[in-house]
């Protein structure tokens, strides 16, 4: 009886692990570039409003630049 139970348990575990060897089928290359907040390291072309390597600072820079450059209701100081 014990052998039967052990065999059964082994079978269940094997069936459970059967899909573990499956390769992921998600679209997308294995190639991944660096995130933008890393910066280019080329100081003359980098905007001065943020710190390279700091993700929060980069996001804030993007928000500020979008509002200042593309939202004229902010630029004109009123609505």
């Amino acid at each position, binding site marked *: 009886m014990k052998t039967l139970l052990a065999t059964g348990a082994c079978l269940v575990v094997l069936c459970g692990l059967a899909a573990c060897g499956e390769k992921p089928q998600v679209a997308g290359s*294995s190639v991944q570039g660096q*995130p*933008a907040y890393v910066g280019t*390291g080329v100081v003359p072309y980098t905007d001065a409003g943020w710190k390279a390597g700091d993700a929060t600072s980069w996001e804030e820079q993007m928000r500020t*630049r979008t509002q200042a450059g*593309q939202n004229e*209701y902010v630029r004109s100081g009123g609505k």
Partner: protein
Amino acid sequence: MARMKFICDAERCIECNGCVTACKAEHAVPWGVNRRRVVTLNDGVPGERSISVACMHCSDAPCMAVCPVDCFYRTEEGVVLHDKDTCIGCGYCSYACPFGAPQFPSSGTFGMRGKMDKCTFCAGGPEAHGSAAENDKYGRNRLAEGKLPACAEMCATKALLGGDGDVVADIFRTRVMMRNKGSEVWGWGTAYGKPSSGSGAPKATKS
């Protein structure tokens, strides 16, 4: 993390092609390849509308799904980029893209298609940011310089908005409200449906 998106305000676009010129100049895009272009609907008819179109950096990008060599990838900022070293120039992405974003230079022998080229949201490619290799293949990496895409920043009427999706959506919404417009604004009904007569929630209809 920000999700970078473009949106074009058809009420403002004056078909000046400034965005197209800015893109070509910034990235030294060769002749015959247009990463961005202005499309005019009902040209010459009163009420014509123009919109600036390029890669929309789709959240569920069809180009990514059909590429046989898996050369596409999505950056942390939500920008869809591709690796030109992997691309075989088959053109599948061109058929899959609803915006006609993928472009192919025809400079090869017997008009052979070269590697695919498309809008990078000014985010370069897989090479090191700001490197000569990245610049040669993909153009300038403005995002890593703390700047926004050249097309959006150069737009004279600010019709083309580019940046974090939440921010540009807020800017666009404010504009629509300031025009005392709402659901009747061009394109709104197509995307979100027409309002039902009277107040209250829209009624479900059979199609």
